[in-house]
C-alpha cells in the first residue's frame, strides 16, 4: 500500500518535471545526434553551413573594422552570403526537423503516459488505501473504487488523478 502511494507520487512528479524541463532538451539532443549520425545530405549540408557561419562570425567579431577594413569587409561578404545560403537551405530542413521533433515528442508522451496507464491497468484491482465506511455515503465510496477496486477503498486510478491534479496545482 504505502509503496504504491509513494511510487505513484514519485512517478507523477518525474513525469511533470520531465515534461517541464527535460523534454525539450531531450528532443533537441536526439535531433542533434540524429543529424550527426544520419547520412541525409540535406541535414549534413545544413550542419556544415551552420558551422561555417559560426566560424566566420567568430572571426568577424575578432576583426577590427576600422583597423583591417579589407579583411573585415571580405569576412562580412562571406557572412552575408552564408547567411542567405543557410536560410534558403534551412527552409528545406525545417520541415523535416519539425516532423522529427513532433514524432519524437509524441513518442515520449506515449512512453510516459503509457507507462503510467500500464501501471494503472495492471494494478487496477489493488486498493491504494481503505476509507472508513461512515465517512462518506455509499455511492461516493463506490465512485472512489472505480473501475475495479474493492468497494470501500480508493482505487489506483482515482489516486493517480488526485496526485496529478495536486502536482499541477503546486508546481
Amino acid at each position, binding site marked *: 500500500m504505502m509503496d504504491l502511494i509513494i511510487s505513484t507520487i514519485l512517478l507523477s512528479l518525474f513525469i511533470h518535471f520531465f515534461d517541464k524541463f527535460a523534454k525539450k532538451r531531450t528532443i533537441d539532443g536526439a535531433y542533434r545526434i540524429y543529424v550527426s549520425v544520419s547520412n541525409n545530405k540535406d541535414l549534413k549540408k545544413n550542419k556544415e553551413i551552420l558551422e561555417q557561419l559560426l566560424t566566420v562570425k567568430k572571426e568577424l567579431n575578432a576583426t577590427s573594422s576600422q583597423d583591417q*577594413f*579589407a579583411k573585415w*569587409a*571580405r569576412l562580412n561578404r562571406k557572412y*552575408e552570403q552564408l547567411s542567405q545560403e543557410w536560410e534558403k537551405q534551412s527552409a528545406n530542413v525545417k520541415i523535416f526537423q519539425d516532423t522529427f521533433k513532433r514524432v519524437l515528442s509524441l513518442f515520449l508522451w506515449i512512453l510516459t503516459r503509457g507507462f503510467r496507464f500500464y501501471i494503472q491497468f495492471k494494478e487496477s484491482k489493488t486498493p491504494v488505501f481503505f476509507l472508513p465506511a461512515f465517512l462518506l455515503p455509499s455511492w461516493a465510496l463506490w465512485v472512489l473504487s472505480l473501475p475495479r477496486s474493492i468497494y470501500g477503498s480508493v482505487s489506483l486510478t482515482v489516486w493517480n488523478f488526485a496526485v496529478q491534479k495536486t502536482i499541477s496545482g503546486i508546481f
Partner: protein
Amino acid sequence: MSFDPLPGTLENLLEQTSLKWIFVGGKGGVGKTTTSCSLAIQMSKVRSSVLLISTDPAHNLSDAFGTKFGKDARKVPGFDNLSAMEIDPNLSIQEMTEQADQQNPNNPLSGMMQDLAFTIPGIDEALAFAEILKQIKSMEFDCVIFDTAPTGHTLRFLNFPTVLEKALGKLGGLSSRFGPMINQMGSIMGVNANEQDLFGKMESMRANISEVNKQFKNPDLTTFVCVCISEFLSLYETERMIQELTSYEIDTHNIVVNQLLLDPNTTCPQCMARRKMQQKYLAQIEELYEDFHVVKVPQVPAEVRGTEALKSFSEMLVKPYVYPTSGKE
C-alpha cells in the same frame, strides 16, 4: 594577365564608347557633385551630346556651375554639347497626378487606380523615375550622367526599374481579371470609363521600364562610379553600396577617393596626422578593391566652383595627380 593595379583614372569610361548611363554616388559630403560635373566635362570632350542630371533634392549642380538649372535640360555655359537639369522626384509625382486628373476629369477610376497603385511599396519613387525616363527618352542624348542623392536614396533609386516592373506586372494581372467588370459598371453608370486606355498606358510604361531595366544590368551600357573619402564611415558606406549594386547586377568598377592630403613635404602636424589616417584606409581600399580603378584626388586649396575651376579639377580624373616636388622654391 597583368598583376599590376588598374590605372587610377576614369579614362576607361571615356574609352568605353558604348556607355549610355553613368551614375555617380556616395555618402553625403564626399564630393559627388564635383566629381559628376568633372566627369561630365571630360565626357563632353569625347561624346556628341552629354546630359548631366541631378536627382539629389539638395540640388548642388546650380551651385557648382554658377548657373540656375531647372527641370528642363539647359546648356551649360561655355559648352555646346553639355546640358544639365535638376529633378525633384517629389514634385514629379505631384505633376503626374495633376496631369492624369486634367486629361480625364470625369474618370471615376483615376482616384481609385492611384490609390491602388500607391499602396505598393516604393511605387512613388518608381513613378518619379518613370517620369525622368520619359523626359530623357525624348531628348536623344548620347550619354547621361546622374548626380545621385546620398547612398540610401541612390540604392532605392537604382532598384526602381525592378520594383516598378513587378508592380506593373501585378496591375496587368488585375486588368485581365477586372477589366470587363469595370467596363460594365462604367456603362451602367453612364460614364465612359476608358479602362483600356488606362491599362494600355500602364502596359506601355511597363514595357519601357523593362527595357531600361535590361540596360541598367548591361555593363556595356551602364556603370556606377563610387565616390568616397578616405575615412571609415565613407569607406563602410562604399562597401555597402558596392554589395547592393552587385546584388542588383549593376556594373561598378571605378572608385574616386577625394580630399586626399598627398603633400609628402608638409610639416604641418595636423596634416601629417590626418594623412596618416587617410593612408591607412587608402591601403585598405586598394587591397579590397584591387579589381577597381581607384582614382586618388588631392584636397585642393580653393573651392571647386565655376566652369573654369571644374575644368582644371576634371583633369585630375583622367591623369593621375603628381604633386609638384619643387614646393619650397
